[in-house]
């Protein structure tokens, strides 16, 4: 293992770059936004991603996966960030896929994973109940019935929740433990409300009022907390990689602007104050990259050492959040007027960055989490 891409990852990076530049450049994200489609992504682009194997990359071969290891997602999400591409890869494959893979019985896996890997079925994780990431908060209840369970509660922020084929709903069982239920579309007692966010992607609120599911909808509750944490850590690392990609794109745009924009008869990038600030952005970009790479390394290596993984994933998400905050703000300021126009792409990056920062843990959350490992 190492902190730079190996050959296989490099190949994934190149092919993702080629595919997204052709099929899902930033302009496509803008078009999706302007079309105001609730689903928030282009199903054909998603199908293309599936064909490239992105939905299979981390699953074991016996489950229909490519057994590439989780580190394959680093280059993919980096390129997704660079191109601001929208897809249900995070929600359906990384988050839900991780939970099903870890907690599903053989028959549940057989029932759920092939469709998910094939991109035919799309699942969304219904976890968050507060406005900031609080993965331990759960007021949604599951009451045992004769034939299964009745679920009641409110999931406020479900990524890719609209038009999903099903939702993995985290609920508290009567014994106080939490479990995860696979709730298929069409279940009675369930309503969705669209949440139109600044990044124009798919976000929904899910209301459950005595939604009845079969007993078989409950994935194994053993090890639920550990499995959820691992799934979330995978998602966090992917978001950190996405932020890295966003920041690389934003920084490249900014450098180009600094080199070419002339004011006072000089390229503004020749002004020392801006040079020093640009140099500081570069520093943050490099620290961010190292942290992201280390998180993926830990995710592939340390199945047996959750503390180490927890520490490195929180470091990566924190560093990505913080660096992205600085880089996006400075990029807009250095661009001046054009940076705040909707016509220019920078605003789209800013909006995606802020969403990625807040999903699965803002900075202070991860500082606390890191402290929990480091200072214990």
């Amino acid at each position, binding site marked *: 293992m190492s902190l730079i891409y190996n050959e296989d990852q490099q190949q994934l990076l190149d092919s993702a770059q080629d595919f997204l530049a052709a099929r899902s450049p930033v302009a496509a994200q803008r078009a999706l936004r302007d079309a105001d489609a609730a689903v928030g992504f282009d199903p054909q682009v998603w199908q293309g991603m599936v064909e490239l194997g992105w939905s299979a990359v981390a699953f074991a071969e016996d489950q229909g996966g490519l057994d590439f290891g989780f580190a394959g997602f680093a280059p993919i999400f980096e390129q997704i960030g660079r191109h601001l591409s929208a897809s249900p890869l995070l929600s359906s494959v990384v988050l839900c896929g991780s939970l099903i893979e870890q907690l599903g019985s053989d028959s549940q896996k057989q029932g759920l994973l092939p469709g998910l890997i094939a991109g035919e079925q799309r699942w969304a994780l219904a976890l968050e109940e507060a406005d900031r*990431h609080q993965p331990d908060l759960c007021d949604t209840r599951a009451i045992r019935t004769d034939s299964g369970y009745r679920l009641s509660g409110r999931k406020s922020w479900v990524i890719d929740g609209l038009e999903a084929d099903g939702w993995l709903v985290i609920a508290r069982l009567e014994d106080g433990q939490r479990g995860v239920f696979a709730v298929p579309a069409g279940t009675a007692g369930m309503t969705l409300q669209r949440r*139109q966010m600044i990044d124009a992607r798919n976000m929904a609120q899910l209301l459950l009022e005595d939604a009845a599911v079969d007993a078989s909808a409950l994935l194994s509750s053993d090890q639920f907390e550990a499995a959820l944490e691992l799934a979330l850590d995978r998602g966090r690392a992917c978001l950190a990689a996405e932020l890295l990609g966003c920041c690389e794109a934003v920084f490249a745009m900014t450098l180009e602007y600094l080199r070419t924009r002339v004011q*006072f008869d000089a390229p503004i990038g020749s002004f020392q104050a801006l040079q020093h600030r640009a140099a500081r952005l570069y520093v943050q970009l490099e620290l961010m990259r190292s942290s992201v790479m280390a998180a993926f390394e830990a995710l592939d290596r340390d199945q047996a050492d959750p503390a180490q993984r927890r520490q490195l994933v929180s470091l990566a998400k924190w560093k990505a959040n913080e660096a992205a905050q600085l880089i996006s703000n400075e990029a807009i300021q250095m661009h001046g007027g054009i940076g705040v126009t909707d016509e220019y792409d920078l605003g789209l990056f800013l909006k995606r960055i802020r969403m990625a920062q807040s999903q699965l843990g803002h900075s202070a959350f991860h*500082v606390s989490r890191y402290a929990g490992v480091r200072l214990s």
Partner: protein
Amino acid sequence: MNELEEFRAETRAWLEANCPASMRTPMPSEEMVWGGRNVEFCSEDQKLWFERMRDKSWFCPDWPVAYGGGGLDVRRSAILDAEMRRLHCRPPQINLGIWMLGPVLLEYASEEQKQRFLPPMARGEIRWCQGFSEPNAGSDLASLRTTAVLDGDDYVINGTKIWTSYGNKSDWMYALVRTGPMVPKQKGISLIVLDMTSPGVSVSPIDLISGKSSFCQVFFDNVRVPRSQLIGEVNDGWKLGKALLQHERRAMSRFSESALPTHFDLDEYVKRCLPAPQDADEVALQQRAVACLMDEQAFSLTNRRMIDSLSARQDVSGLMAISKLVHTEQEREKFEILLQLLGNQSMGWSGDGFASRDLDLTGAWLMSFAQTIAGGSSEVQLNVIAKRVLGLPDPVQGVRS
């Protein structure tokens, strides 16, 4: 003094009699009255108040009577101001012409031009917009390229202006145009005024990252403007432009004091969202928010100190120079904290899922990025402080060859 006190009493009585009660309440931004050809009123009281102040010639209380002003001297004008503030009177209209162009016309325009442009301005009949910035002339305004070429008795204007507020709703524009060569580039610039309905003028509003905006880009395609509308000397408009920009600060501060600000009180949000911080991240967030409140108070005390210094006739150029920088950067910090406080709720774009107040906040946050850029970017402010206030040497002279 007696006379002044008499004037104060009269003024107070007149305002109390003539300013409708509903015009003594804070003014939401959508209820601002913009003078102009198509002045619109939301209520009968607004119209009354507008007409009474117009007929009193108090849109421009300190302009000469000859040009439609109120003819008040500085002290009486200040008394009127103070009394309006005391009664919380709304400004009867908002008009960039009066606040920015007017004073420059009074100083530099010909008698004929004054006669022509000032009285309608003073009656609130014309809504003015400003045409200064261009896509390639932002911080470096003097590099503007919109040309005005003399052809017979007309200037023919070609080019484009950007960041023109309410360009699509204004009747006339005052603009800086290039009538002479680029070298030295401050020379060769003139100030001209033109009717926005002139053939060849087109306007497109600019969408910002925050959504629709009042900013426009204005295009000139062989727009003919009579040479009599050029203000001051040909090729000597740079100093007029600079004079105008000095009035901009005053205008902006009037503007913000009169409008009910789209104010998001950080105190309130902290109390509401973090009534009792629980875990370490909430405590840290609260501390960050409190530090922001403290910095805001330090700034507001600095404004108070500036007023005290002014009364004592002390030099306040340093305090003036930091004002815009500090305020706009504090606002940005405040909005980032508000985003943290509200979490996902602060990142809605539209739709039923969000309170309109929260959607407003999202928009105000995104607009806060524009505030550190528009009207002299933070970098320009820092340059000015370094050179004019601190007297640091100009980079130009010292750099090795």
